[in-house]
C-alpha cells in the first residue's frame, strides 16, 4: 500500500509535528520508499510464531509498594521551559 499527501499530513498530526505543504510533499516518496521496502516482511511465513516480547528471558520484578524517591520538586522543574508556583506552566487549554 502506498501513502499519499493526505496520509502524510495525518501521520504528522498524530506525531504532533507541524509540517508545511512542501515538507509533507517531500516526505511522500521518502516514506513510501521506506514502507515499500519493509513490506517484504509480509512474505515471511509466521504461522504459529509468537511475537517477540523479551530477547533475554527475564521476569519483571516486583518491589514493595513504597515511595522510593520524591521531595525533589525543584529538581523536576529545573529544566522546564516555564515553571510557576511549583508547577509546569502551559498555554491555556480551557476554551
Amino acid at each position, binding site marked *: 500500500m502506498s*501513502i499519499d499527501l493526505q*496520509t*502524510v499530513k495525518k*501521520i*504528522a*498530526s*498524530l*506525531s*504532533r*509535528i*507541524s*509540517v508545511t505543504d512542501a515538507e509533507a510533499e517531500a*516526505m511522500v516518496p*521518502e*516514506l513510501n*520508499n*521506506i*514502507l515499500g*521496502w*519493509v*513490506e*517484504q*516482511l*509480509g512474505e*515471511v511465513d*509466521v504461522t504459529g*510464531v*509468537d*511475537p*517477540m*516480547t*523479551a*530477547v*533475554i528471558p*527475564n521476569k*519483571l*520484578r516486583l*518491589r514493595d509498594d513504597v515511595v522510593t524517591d520524591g521531595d*525533589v520538586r525543584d*529538581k*523536576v522543574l*529545573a*529544566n*522546564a*521551559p*516555564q515553571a510557576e508556583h511549583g508547577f*509546569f506552566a*502551559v*498555554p*491555556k*487549554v480551557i476554551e
Partner: protein
Amino acid sequence: MTDLTDLTVAEIRDGFRAGDFSAREVAEAFNANVASAKALNAFIVETPEKALAAADAADKAKAAGEALKPLSGVPIGMKDLFCTEGVQTTAASHMLEGFKPTYESTVSKKLWDAGAGMLGKLNLDQFAMGSSNETSYFGNVISPWRRGGGDNAALAPGGSSGGSSAAIAARLCPAATGTDTGGSIRQPAAFTGISGIKPTYGRCSRWGIVAFASSLDQAGPMARTVRDNAILLETMAGFDPRDSTSLDLPVPQWEANLSSDLKGKTVGIPREYRPDGLNAEIAALWDRGIEWLKDAGAQVVEVSLPHTKYALPTYYIIAPAEASSNLARYDGVRYGQRELPDGAGLQDMYAATRAAGFGPEVKRRIMIGTYVLSAGFYDAYYTQAQKVRTLIARDFEQAFEKCDLLLTPTAPSASFALGEKQADPLAMYLNDIFTVPASLAGLPAMAVPGGLDSQGLPLGLQIIGKALDEQGVLNAGLAIEERAGFTARPEKWW
C-alpha cells in the same frame, strides 16, 4: 618520554599505579589534545575541569596511600546520550539544547565512582539515529582518517557513536562510552580502526540514557584494545533496579579471564552474510579472520541464519515504532525547547516545538513509527515484525547448537565521504546490515579492526556470541587482535 595520549587504558591505569606518571599529567595531556582537535567536532561540551578534578583525587589518594579504584587516573569521553548531572546533555538535538540533567545515568555514575574522569560529552547522530554522524544538530563529526593519495575528502566516523570513535582514533581520549541500538558501537569502531563491544541486552543499565528504541538500546565501551573494552565493561555492567530489563546477574571478571586460546571452541561462518556483490576486500579480510581463529585453535564450520535478509526491514519497523513512543516525551513542557507561536494553544505548541526541535531523520523515524503503530496497520507491520524478530532470534539459537561464536564482517564497506549517502535514507540504513541481527536477538557482539583497505581505511570484523558470553566474544576478539597486528593510525591533519 612516551606520549601519554598513546597509552591504552590498561597502560594508564598500571603506569599511574607504578608511579611512572601522575594522573594530572595524563589528564592534562588529553585535555590538550581535545582542545586542539576542534576540526574533528568530536565533542559537544568539553569538561577539562572534570578530568583534572578526578585526576587530582586519584593523585591525592595515591599520595595518602589509600586504595586505588579500578579506573583511578583514567580520563574518558562520555557519549552525549548519557545524562550527566549539571552538564548539558543533548542527544545531539536542538530539542535538548541547554538541558542540564539533575541526575546522573547509572553507567556514567559507575564510571565516575570507579575513578574515571570526564573529558567531555561526545557528539553523535541526533537521538542516536544515523550511521554517519551527519544528523547531529551540532554539526558533523569528521573522521580523523583520510583516504590515501592526497584525497582530503571529509570521511564519516560512523554512527551513531561517531564522536566516540573519532575521539579515540585521534587520541583525544583512551576510551569512551557508546550505545548500540542497531550497530552504533560496532560500525563506528570498524570505520575508525578501534574496538567496541555491545554486551548482552540487559547487562548495562539503560537508566539515564536518552531512550531511542528501548528493546534494543544497550550501552557499551569503545577503546583501542580488547583488554580496554573488558576493563570498561566490567565497570559499566551490573544490575540496576531502576531499569526494568536490567539483568540481575553478577558481573564476570572479563579482564582477568581474557585468553586468546580458542582450543575447543567452534566458530560459525553464516553463509547469508556473504551476499552476492560483497565488497571483495571485506570478503578477503573475513577469510583472513577465519584463518586467524583457526590459528588460535578454533574449529570453523559453516552455519545458516536463514532470516538474515529480513533483519533490516524488521529493525526499521521496530526501532521507529519504539522511537515514536519514546520521543513523545518531548512536548515542550517538562524539559528542552519550547516553541510557542503567538496565540498558540497547547496542541499547536506541541506541534511547533517538535517541528523546531527534531531534525529531518528523527522526524522521519517518528512518523514511520507512528504509521506502523496506527490503527489498522499495527498487525500488518508491528506484530509481523515482532514475529519475524522471534524467527531471527531462533536462527541464532539453532546456529549456536553447532558453534560457540560467529564471525562476520562489521560493515559492508569502509568509511564513506560525508554527504555521499545522505540523499537516500535507505542506502544509509543498509550500512547496518551485519550489525542489526545481533541487536534484534539481544546478543553480545564486538567489532575489532582487521586491517586497511586499498584506500588506506580501516576494516573491521565482528564476533557475535551466545547470550551472556561476553567472555567468549572478548577472547575471540583478542585472538584476532593479536594476529591482525593492527597498528595503523590516522596521520594528524587536524
